[in-house]
């Protein structure tokens, strides 16, 4: 065992995290273009027959249909029928709808998982140690880096595509299962050894396809790739909850107070109720002062679409869509641009990923510690409940990273001496906003100076933790001493932390 620079134990054979700045250098492998036109098939079974599938392969998927996705389950059910074993799956995220995977973990069909986020029964099974190999949990940008650099070799990419034409070109903007931007599948399309488009709508020709058919080996048309209503799986309404609104008001005041709200700024926020409330407050200030933002990025919601249409935001840089208003906007508004996972957050993307151009990002936290390290991967008992997604990417890239969270959730203090699992290093977190006060990372004396005299309640993070303890007492935290069930891979490929089972 080694220890990385955050003091976390990392198993031998992995590259330990050593700071968020020097990304591990590795040149991209060559892209692969298919020499001939794709072959059109009728069933997933036909595809398996056509492909030389073997035990031990890696199949990848994307999560743009989110909780409505059917493709992953269909393909893996076929893999089980085929009697395949020891497969690694690499979906960009795993949701509760992927519950049918759980028995495949038990039976050894699936023995490895590489993903950016997992929540629900599969995450529970991984936490319980049902996956033979440790799962690898990437960031959104880190997954693109891993695929393009060869760290994550993909044998077959099974990619749900809402509309495909006769040349194998595809788009997510249109079709009965239109889900908008398909940003996360871009590295799979270009770097997987074999690419299969799974669609439920075939047309003769797409005028402006998003996905280039030259990279596609097979196209299979099935009845339904999923339920697009399932993309609305997060909170997409502004919170009415008073604590959340107070946190949002203070977060907007911080962003304003440090001087970020000026003409041409850029921003990203999550899709949670509090983050949406921050955007609503920022929007009010923008209207009052006649300020226009250059762009907003990330997962796009109706709220950002409204701001684009009101002329408050110059462009939307869309890597995925969180509601159907966003999907519809992408299909008709040229200022609403789809971007790829690499363009969005790959630390090796040149000249620079979009996250590096963000003035600020507003993120959540399941836990945050006295070094400002953030956990959005596990709960305090070490159960996997999420993952980085774009958290670590945007936190590193943005000039100011603001974390918003309740100080106490479900009777547990959110600030602790050491987080259960590090998802995002504290060196990339600048400000923490809670309902009982705001903590600024000691490294950011510039922000602290700007907020002095703002009337905001700013105090050291340890004092905020003490306030929480005055309410909850000091909780006894369980320790995880068992075998490693997941490796948390930072965006540069180094291992920032591990998740263990509770007991050996």
């Amino acid at each position: 065992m080694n220890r990385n620079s955050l003091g976390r134990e990392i198993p031998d054979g992995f590259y330990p995290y050593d700071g968020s700045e020097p990304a591990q250098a590795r040149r991209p492998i060559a892209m692969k273009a298919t020499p001939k036109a794709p072959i059109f098939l009728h069933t997933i079974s036909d595809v398996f027959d056509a492909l030389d599938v073997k035990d031990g392969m890696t199949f990848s998927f994307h999560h743009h249909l989110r909780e409505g996705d059917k493709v992953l389950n269909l393909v893996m059910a076929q893999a089980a029928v085929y009697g395949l074993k020891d497969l690694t799956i690499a979906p960009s995220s795993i949701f509760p709808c992927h519950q049918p995977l759980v028995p495949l973990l038990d039976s050894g069909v699936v023995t490895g998982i590489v993903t950016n986020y997992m929540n629900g029964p599969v995450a529970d099974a991984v936490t319980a140690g049902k996956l033979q190999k440790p799962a690898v949990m990437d960031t959104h940008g880190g997954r693109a880096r891993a695929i393009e650099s060869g760290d994550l070799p993909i044998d077959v990419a099974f990619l749900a595509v809402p509309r495909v034409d006769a040349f194998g070109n595809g788009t997510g903007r249109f079709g009965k299962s239109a889900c908008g931007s398909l940003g996360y599948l871009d590295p799979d399309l270009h770097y997987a050894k074999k690419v299969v488009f799974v669609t439920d709508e075939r047309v003769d020709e797409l005028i402006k396809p998003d996905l280039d058919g030259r990279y596609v080996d097979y196209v299979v048309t099935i009845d339904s790739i999923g339920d697009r209503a399932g993309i609305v799986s997060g909170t997409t309404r502004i919170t009415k909850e008073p604590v959340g609104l107070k946190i949002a008001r203070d977060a907007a005041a911080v962003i304003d107070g440090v001087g970020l709200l000026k003409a041409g700024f850029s921003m990203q926020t999550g899709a949670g109720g509090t983050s949406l409330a921050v955007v609503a407050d920022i929007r009010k200030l923008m209207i009052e002062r006649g300020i226009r933002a250059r762009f907003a990025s990330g997962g796009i919601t109706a709220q950002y679409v409204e701001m684009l249409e009101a002329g408050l935001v110059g462009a939307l840089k869309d890597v995925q869509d969180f509601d159907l208003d966003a999907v519809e906007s992408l299909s008709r508004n040229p200022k609403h641009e789809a971007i790829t996972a690499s363009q969005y957050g790959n630390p090796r993307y040149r000249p620079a990923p979009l996250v590096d151009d963000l003035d600020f990002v507003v993120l959540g936290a399941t836990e945050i510690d006295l070094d400002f390290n953030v956990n959005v991967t596990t709960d305090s008992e070490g159960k996997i409940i999420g993952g980085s997604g774009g958290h670590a990417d945007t936190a590193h890239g943005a000039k100011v990273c603001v974390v918003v969270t309740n100080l106490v959730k479900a009777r547990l203090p959110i600030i602790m001496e050491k987080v259960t699992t590090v998802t995002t290093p504290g060196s990339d977190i600048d400000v923490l906003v809670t309902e009982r006060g705001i903590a600024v990372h000691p490294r950011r004396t510039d922000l602290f100076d700007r907020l002095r005299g703002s009337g905001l309640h700013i105090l050291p993070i340890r004092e905020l933790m003490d306030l929480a303890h005055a309410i909850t007492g000091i909780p006894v935290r369980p320790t995880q001493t068992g075998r490693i069930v997941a490796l948390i891979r930072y965006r540069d490929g180094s291992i920032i932390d591990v998740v263990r089972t509770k007991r050996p």
Partner: protein
Amino acid sequence: MRTTLLFIPGNHPAMLQNADVFGADGIILDLEDAVAATEKDAARALVGEYLKSWKLDTPELLVRVNGLPSGWFEADLEAIACDRLSAIVYPKAGVEELYEVDRILSEVETRHHLNHPIGIIPIIESAQGVVETDDISYLPRLKGMLLGGEDLSADMEISRTREGAELAYPRARLSFACKAAGIDAIDTPFADVNDAEGLLADARTARSLGFTGKAVIHPNQITTIQQAFCPDPKEIFWARRVIAAAADAAKKHQGAFSLDGKMIDKPVIKRAEGILLRAGITDRATADEPK
């Protein structure tokens, strides 16, 4: 200063936990209408424990108790009596009952060895209460009076409206009585928690009638009420100039003087001082004109 007094149901631990974070001047922990009869015991224990064991600083803490006729009043007092309790908020108040409340409070204070007396903020929410406002205002222990518009309207068999014209008389009567007695006049809550515009107008009306604050039934109402009660930047600018000009005039031994062509005398200076006081401004130097 009791510009905002936030009602928090006494049987809701999660709300109690965050009651102090919203910037209200006082928190009214409610044991009365917000709590069903079957929940009274639990709420009483929870509120009592909160008052006695909450470790963080809080704004002023008050408790709306159940009234004497309910039969729960004395049990409520026994559970909540402590030095952290600033005052009880007493429902459907009348003069005779408040004398009895005063007597019981004295006994409780002695029994619990309290270091300071428990105040009373009666809720004027019946026609009888409105008629007795002048007498009530001079009773001992009073820190203010709170108008209860909903119960009052029910008692009067009239409807509440968004504009609140039906409350013009009791509002005026209560605010005058409080001013005369030197206690706070606290306006009735605004019931529609989703109507910020209506709340702002309602709070401004209350302020214009001389109320010093307003009861709050949802934390999201607090900033709107503060906005209505806090003088706006133009008023503050004007007040600062009046005070500065008054200081100059005093040096010249002038009783009255002119500012922007208008006569400034003692009542105007007093009003300017009141504006700065309400804005919490102690530094009276003239600032730049607001844009």
